Every structure is written in structure tokens, then in C-alpha cells.
């Protein structure tokens, strides 16, 4: 390790030191505002450190980590999203009782785990990243300690542990066959062996299955709705965006090094998963009455769409996936942000009835939520449309016609439940239900305003972001 290496590690160090500082501060004196501020400061420091990395990328730090533009792009996305989640959580939690300071320790650790994923170049780093992320999430999901929240935390714990086992077994098979856990070496030895080794293929399949749990693609998706529903709304936003996005970024990197197109059977298996996810997600969301569950199912479908772009080949692939992820992050954070700002002290605003007549009570919130839903549905002039357009273009460019047709069909099914939710917001409120008036969450609305501006901006003027993504992912 040289001084230069530490320059590269600076973002990770910043995001790793911040929780330590918060813990020490809490030990001295409990102050919610202080720990929240320290968390925000840590994230900002880590974000700024991204711009200060030394020359000479791609740069490897030990055999575990690699720092390149691709990693910086995704770290930036992760930090920005964590920042938004922190802001959303700050007022949400302040309204609740109990020891709240440690929330930010856990959140930053989860962020650290996610960042580690996008820089890993080795199954060792990969596994450590996933475990840091998962263990933090167990506690975060159960943080509010009401019945649903604890249940969700435990479910996530059991199932994530099981899938880690599957994942580890896959790594073991790959190691046994190739004798390495480093991605580039693994790729080289696989290519040398020929691609049709039984053990090798089984190992890759098990790794994908383990990742599939994290991404909540069908049929590994069943936990999603329960966990999304039980977790506090800001944590749900984190699970839906950062944790999935980081894993997807790693998946993309790994299968860019180990060319998935050379493994036809694996390719077919992932295609099956993509189709299953699209249908499972959209059909499950169709008549669902819980908004958090609707968004959970919708995220299953969106991961299915992403897999279509993932299976495409050529230059469009990484651009399409990355842009879609950016759009998905903005939209999902916005949607869960709305749920967060509408949630009262006792429970989250996740019943569809909570949204009846929202437009008459809170026109701006209803408009923002509508924009997010339109983007999820992929309506033009929103980021979601451009994202979907690129995904379809990537799929069509690689002649994945069956997958593209499925995507289009599923987009049509998806429209139903997004519009259903929108309609509810604009009809006049029922009489029996007296809406609880909540204090306006200033930071919450600030975050939502920024997100909705980004959403429309990316829908109308996506060129700069696409150019940024192109240049940053050129090495992949």
C-alpha cells in the first residue's frame, strides 16, 4: 500500500470513518442533530473525495479492489442517494421515540458495503461488501421495532443468510475449477478452459442465484414485499435503490469481464429470470392496495427490464443499464420520499386509502407523486421514458426480440397499477376517513423538489448525463 493507494481509497475511508466518529460522539453524549449532521458531513466528504482521486486510473489497490471511472460513477450515485435517504430519514425519525442516533451508523455502513461492491475486483471484496451491506440492513429494516418492522428484519436476515450460502458455494466451485477469485484471472482461465465446463457453469449459476436474491428478481423475489412493507420508508428507499444498484453494477462489471455471451446456457437462464421478474412484478402489483407493496412489486419488474439491457451486447449495453439505473434511483427515491413525508408517527402512509383525494389536500405532493409514477410507467418527458427507450433500443440492437416484446407487454400491464394509484389521488376524498394533518417536512420536500426537477430535466435534456455515463463507462 502506497500513499497513492490511500488517495484512491479516500472516498471509502471517509464513508468508513464517519460511522466511527458518530459512535464515539454517541458514547460521549447523545445528540440526534449531531449524529445526523456528522453523517451528512461524512457523505459529502466522501463525495468530494471522488473528485480528488489521483491520476492513473484504472488503478488496482491490492488484488481486491479496482478504481476506475465506472466505480467512481457508481460511487457518486450511491453517495448522492444515501445523502437523499439521510435527509428523508432525518425528519421521519425525529418524529419517533427511542435511540435514533445509531441509525446513521448503520446507514453509513450499508453505504460503505455498497461502495465496496462497485470497486470489487475479487470475490473476496465482493463477499465482504455484500455482508457489510446485509448486516447493516438487518438492523435498519427492524429499526423502528414495531411488529411488522421486526418481522421484516428477521425474514430478511434468514433469507439473506441462506442466499449467502448459495453464493459462497458458487464461489467455491469457481475457485476449485480455476484456482482464483480475481475477476480478470478467472476470466482468462475460463477462456483457456473453454466455456462448457460443468462445474464452472454451475458455479456461475449459483453466484447469479445468490445475486438474484439481492436484486429481488423472480423467483427469488418473494421476500421483497414483506420487507418493503415492514421497513421504515426511508430504509425501503435505500433497499430499493442503493443496495440493488450497487449489486447490479457489480453484476455488470463481472459479466463484462467474464463474457456472458460466451455462456449460452447461463444467458438463457438469466433471460428466463428476466421474463419471470417482469411478469411476477407487474402481475403481483396489479390489484395490490398497499403502496409500499406496489412499489416493491414494481421494482421487481424494473429489475426484469434492466436484465434485458444487461443481456444486450455492444456499446449500448452499459450506457442503457447505467442510465436506467440513474432514472430508477431518482424515481424510486422520489416515490418512497413521498411515502416518507406523508407518514405519521404511528405508521407509514402505505394504504392506498391514505392517498385518496391527496390532490385536494396536498396538491404539490400529489403532483410530485404523479410525476414519479409516470416516470416509473415510462411516459415521455420523464427520465423513466428515456431509460426505457435506451433499454429497448439496446435489446432491439442485439436482436433480443422475445425479451423486448415481453418488456413492451409488461409496460402495458404496469400502466394499470400506476394509473390506478394516480386516479385515487385525484378523486375527491371519502367522507369516513379524516385525513391526519401532518407538519410539512421541509428537508423532505426539498429533496422531493430536487428529485422532480432532475426527473423532468433528464426527460427533456438527457444528453449531458448520457455523455457523462458514456465517458465514465468507456473502460467497461
Amino acid at each position, binding site marked *: 500500500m502506497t500513499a497513492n493507494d490511500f488517495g484512491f481509497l479516500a472516498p471509502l475511508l471517509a464513508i468508513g470513518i464517519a460511522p466511527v466518529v458518530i459512535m464515539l460522539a454517541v458514547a460521549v453524549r447523545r445528540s440526534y442533530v449531531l449524529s445526523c449532521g456528522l453523517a451528512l458531513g461524512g457523505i459529502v466528504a466522501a463525495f468530494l473525495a471522488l473528485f480528488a482521486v489521483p491520476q492513473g486510473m484504472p488503478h488496482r489497490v491490492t488484488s481486491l479492489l479496482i478504481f476506475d471511472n465506472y466505480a467512481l460513477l457508481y460511487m457518486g450515485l450511491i453517495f448522492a442517494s444515501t445523502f437523499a435517504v439521510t435527509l428523508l430519514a432525518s425528519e421521519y425519525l425525529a418524529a419517533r421515540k427511542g435511540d435514533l442516533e445509531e441509525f446513521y451508523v448503520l446507514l453509513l455502513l450499508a453505504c460503505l458495503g455498497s461502495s465496496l461492491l462497485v470497486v470489487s475486483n475479487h470475490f473476496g471484496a465482493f463477499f465482504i461488501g455484500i455482508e457489510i451491506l446485509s448486516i447493516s440492513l438487518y438492523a435498519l429494516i427492524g429499526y423502528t421495532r414495531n411488529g411488522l418492522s421486526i418481522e421484516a428484519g*428477521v*425474514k430478511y436476515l*434468514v*433469507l439473506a443468510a*441462506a*442466499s449467502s450460502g*448459495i453464493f459462497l458455494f458458487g464461489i467455491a466451485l469457481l475457485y476449485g475449477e480455476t484456482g482464483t477469485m480475481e475477476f480478470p484471472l478467472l476470466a482468462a482461465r475460463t477462456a483457456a478452459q473453454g466455456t*462448457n465446463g*460443468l462445474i464452472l*457453469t*454451475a458455479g*456461475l*449459476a*449459483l453466484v*447469479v*442465484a445468490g445475486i*438474484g*436474491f439481492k436484486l429481488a428478481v*423472480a*423467483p*427469488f*423475489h*418473494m*421476500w421483497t*414485499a*414483506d420487507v418493503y412493507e415492514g421497513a421504515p420508508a426511508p430504509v425501503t428507499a435505500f433497499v430499493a435503490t442503493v443496495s440493488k444498484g450497487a449489486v447490479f453494477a457489480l453484476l455488470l462489471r463481472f459479466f463484462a469481464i467474464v463474457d456472458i455471451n460466451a*455462456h*449460452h*446456457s*447461463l444467458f*438463457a*437462464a438469466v433471460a*428466463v*429470470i428476466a421474463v419471470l421478474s417482469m*411478469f*411476477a412484478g407487474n*402481475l*403481483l402489483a*396489479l*390489484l395490490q392496495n398497499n403502496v409500499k407493496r406496489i412499489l416493491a412489486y414494481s421494482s421487481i419488474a424494473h429489475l426484469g427490464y434492466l436484465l434485458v439491457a444487461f443481456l444486450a451486447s455492444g456499446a*449500448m449495453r452499459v450506457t442503457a443499464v447505467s442510465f436506467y439505473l440513474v432514472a430508477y434511483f431518482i424515481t424510486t427515491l422520489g416515490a418512497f420520499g413521498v411515502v416518507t413525508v406523508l407518514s405519521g408517527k404511528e405508521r407509514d402512509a402505505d394504504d392506498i386509502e391514505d392517498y385518496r383525494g391527496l390532490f385536494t389536500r396536498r396538491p404539490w405532493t400529489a403532483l410530485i407523486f404523479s410525476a414519479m409514477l409516470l416516470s416509473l410507467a415510462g411516459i415521455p418527458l420523464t427520465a423513466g421514458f*428515456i431509460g426505457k*427507450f*435506451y433499454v429497448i*433500443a439496446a435489446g432491439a*440492437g442485439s436482436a433480443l426480440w422475445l425479451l423486448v416484446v415481453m418488456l413492451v407487454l409488461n409496460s402495458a*400491464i404496469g400502466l*394499470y397499477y400506476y394509473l390506478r394509484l394516480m386516479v385515487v389521488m385525484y378523486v375527491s376524498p371519502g367522507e369516513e376517513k379524516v385525513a391526519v394533518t401532518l407538519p410539512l417536512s421541509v428537508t423532505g420536500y426539498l429533496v422531493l423538489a430536487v428529485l422532480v426537477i432532475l426527473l423532468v430535466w433528464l426527460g*427533456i*435534456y*438527457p*444528453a*449531458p448525463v*448520457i455523455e457523462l455515463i458514456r465517458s465514465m463507462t468507456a473502460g467497461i
Partner: protein
Amino acid sequence: MRTLLWLIPALPFAGFFVLAVFGARLREKGVAAIGAGSVGVSAVLAILAGISFITSPPPGGSWTQTLWTWIGVDGFRPAIAFYLDALSLVMTLVVTFVGFLIHLYATEFMSDDEGYSRFFAYMNLFVGSMLTLVLADNLLLLYLGWEGVGLCSYLLIGFWYKDPANGSAAMKAFIVTRIGDAAMAVGLFLIFMNLGTLNIQEIMQKASHTWPRGSGLAVAAAALLLGGALGKSAQLPLQTWLPDAMAGPTPVSALIHAATMVTAGVYLIARTNVLFLLAPPVQAAVAIIGAATLLLAGFSALTQRDIKRVLAYSTISQIGYMFLALGVGAWSAAIFHFMTHAFFKALLFLGAGAVILAMEHEHDMFRMGGLRKELPVTFWTFLIGSASLSALPLVTAGFYSKDLILWYSWSSENGSPWLWAAGLAGALLTSIYTFRMVFLTFFGERKKEAGRRPGRVMTIPLVALAVLSVIGGFAELPRTLGNMPVFSEFVNTVLPPVKAAGEAQSAEAAMQVVTSFVSLAGVYVAYLLFLRKRRYVEGLAATRTGRALHRLWFSGWAFDWVYDRALVQPFFWIARINRDDFVDLFYDGIAWYNGFFHGALSLTQSGKVRWYAMGIALGTVIMVGIAVVLL
């Protein structure tokens, strides 16, 4: 100066945005300042851009400002780009300048209306969309503007939405123009499929290289675009929506349904002139449709009682002249008539608005009369507008533009005596119905006291437009009268020149004498029939044929009736008897199956961890199974 081009459409959009968000909290003065101000600044910028364009013309006679590329995938790269050349400059100047005057007028006209800020928000959105339409450098952006103005037209026709009749007029306008828009959209697909681009200049180049003159594809593309133009510009057979569109506030009629939006079709055809030159049958159709429309609408205008409906039919008829000009290849004459028409028709609508306001929202001309003394400014400006519309010789703008069209409909290569005769007959009708309107409204006995008089803010636009309705024509002096074709020389840097058969100057002079005589004769006929000897016309209308003709013309040649019987009623009938048809069954089936699968899948969401773990195990088996079996 040119780099500020994007601001010209952006400012009205910004005005719309501000008014939409904060309008409800602003006072009337603030709304007026933002609403009219944004368009006013746009007009100033447009004038500055025009000055810099004329004093230092860009190389090639055009200049493109590319802001960004919306999406970039292989061949499909629609840019957000504005294209400034002589044609779009003229359109921009007219839209912003006339638009500003109408906004100014509306600040007073609409005062005390409860939807004041909503009105200006829509109007600003309209101006922004219209400018997007004329400045667009590709057909996709043009289409965005095209649909934007259609939306605003719908919103503003139905502005007083509490009366259901206004709502249905708005829907009628939207649906009828939509028929044309659908044709146009298909045209865009066709062009993109075959030429691989939507950039207008590239289309023009590629089309003339790849499509031979008269080829099927060129004809299809031109015909489909023409379909869009017919709907938007209210030409046969899609003209039925415009008279009903008068349900909107009068400034809306002046801006959207007279001066700007309805001429978008003319602009589209002029902009894509190469396609129409490659499709001679379509271009001939343009001329014939124009000639037929101008005659039919002229007859209808003769019989209307509602002052705004007279003007609406007159607008249809005048756009007919523009189509006639486009059809005979007199591109610059069409644009010239667009400009003068924008001046005098906006003036007439605004004047009519002042009259209607003074009459406490009375539209029926037969209940007005003798307003000459009571509303002097309105009277004189209205008279100037009427003179210009009737093309009274030498001193009016309408004379120069209409004369040019009539001359080319005779002398150009595509012209014919028939077209000319139709245009001449139309000119006679024009001056009869115009001065019928003047005499009924301002002369004769007084039937009702004038109420509210127009204030200064409403008077300024009237005077400004009256001045333009006179001097606007001097931009193009025919060779018989000074020979200074400044306007056509300017726009002919973009548009192809007229292919004239080379008739002698004396022929043109003779024709001018004839048309001057005809328009003056029309005024005299109107004077005779509607001021001096009303019994003649009453006697005429009382005969059997007279009554039948009156009914036919009054109803706009019964197009509404025919469409109702031929399209609307059968559609309702089919919809009624076909309530549970098999097509529906198919879609119901889809919905049912979706619901069914939703139910089935929901069963898997049991909330039990062991069941979920089974899912993971199953997934792993599927993954490994497929990966190994297919190996």
C-alpha cells in the same frame, strides 16, 4: 443577437410556467405584466434577430441553433434545434408581434374574469408552442409544437367551461383536427422510414435525390402532410370546427383562430415545399381545395348573423386563398397573404371584441347598428380592417397580397382560368360579406345603447394593427405599381420562385383593374342590399330557393349535418349494438387473465419464511438446471 434565438420561444414558456404555478396568488396587474410582457420581450428579441438577420445574413441564408440532442440512438437523433431563415423569421415576427398586441388587448378585455391568470397561462403556452412550431428544425419538434397549439386551442375554446356548449365546441375542434394530425403522424413515420431522418432540410435534400417527380412515395408523403394541414387550417373537408371555435374569448379567436395557428398548415406546406413539388397531383389538389374552400366559406359568411361567425368563415375563406397560392406554386404570395391577413383579421376580431363588449356580449349583428358615432375609434379601425379584407385597391394591404395570388392563379404554370375565376368570385363575396358586416354593425338605426367603451389599452392594438393593415402591403409592390417586390425577394431566398408563363405586364395591369372593380362592386352591392334597399335582400331570402340557399349557407353547406349522419350517428349506432362484441371479449379476457394470475401469484405471498426460502431454493434449481442442461 442570434444566440438569443432560443429565448424567443423560451420566454412565453417561462411565462406560462410562472403563471401556472404562482398565477393564482398574483394580482391582475402582475398577471398582465407577466403574460403580455413575456410575449412582448419575445417580440423585441424577434425584431432584433430580424435586424441582425437582414443586415448580416448568415451564409446559406439560414442559421441553426442546436440546443441539444434529445435521444441519440443510431439513426434516430432528434435535436432540440431552432432553424432561422427568411420564412421562419417572417412567421416568428408576425406571431410575436401580433401575439403581443393581442395579449395587450386581452389584459383589458379579460379584466374581471375569474380565470384571468389561467387565460394568460394558456395564451403564453400557445405562443411558446407556436414559436416552437415555426422555428423547429426537425419535424418531430415541429409536431410537438403542432400538438401544443392544438392543446391550447382546445383549452382556450373551452375556456368558459361552465357552459357545456363551449366544452363540446372545444372537443369538436380537437377531434376534427386530430383526424388531420393522425394523417400527419403517419406521414412523419413514412418519411422517417424511407429517408431515415426527420430534419427538415435533410428531408428536402434526400427527397429530391431519392424520389423521382410524381413517385408514389412522394405523393403519399405530401398527401399525408396535406391531411395535417387541412385539419389545422380548417380547409375542406375538415373546416367544420372553426366556426364553432368562436366559443372562445375574442382575443383567442383573433390570435389562434385567425392570425396564427390556423395558418400553421400554410406554413407546413411552404416549409416542405420540395415534397409538394415532387408530387404534382397533391399540389394540384392543394389549389383546388383552396379554391373550393374560399368559395364555400364565402357563401356561408354571407348569411351569418353572429359577427364572429362571419369572421370565422372569412378566415376559412382567406386561408383558402393561401392554399390556392401554394397550389399554383406562388409560395411567397401565400406567405405574404398570411402576413397581411394576420394584421387585418386580428384587427377585425379585436374590433368585433370591442363591439361585443360594448353590446354586453351580444353577438348578433341584427341587434346592433349605428355604432359609428358611439365607438368612433373602433369604427374607423374596423373600417380599415374591412377595406383591407375586401382588398380595396391601392391603399390596403389586402389588395397587394390578394392581387398577387389572383395574378399567379392565372399566369403561373399550374394556374388556370378556372382557379382565377374562383378567386375572383371569392373576392366579390368577400367584399359583400365584409361590408354587410360593417353596415349592419355600424350604420343604420341604433338598436341598443353602447355600454363599456374600449379603454386605452384596447385602443393601442387596434390602431397599431390598423396602421399595419394599410402599410403592410407596401412590402411588395407589383411591377405595374412601382415594381418593388421586397417581400418575395426576401422569402424567395428559401422558397422556390414562381414559374410564371411570362404574361405581359399589360395583362397584369388589366387584371388588377378587374379585381379592383370587383371588390368595389362588392362594396356597392353590400351598400345597396344591406343599407339602402333592405327589401331586395329580404324579398330574395323569402323566395323558396332563397330560403333553401340561406339555410344551406347558414349551416356551412350542411357539412355538420352530413358528418353527423354519415359518421357520428353510425358510430354511435355501432357502439350501441356492439356493447358486448367479441373484440371486447378479447380485451376483457386479457384483463381477466391478468386478474387471475394476480390472484394466483398472490397466493405465493403467504408471509411464511419457509415458503420464501423454498422460492429461493426453487430459483436456484431453475438457474443451475437451465445452465447445466442447456450446456
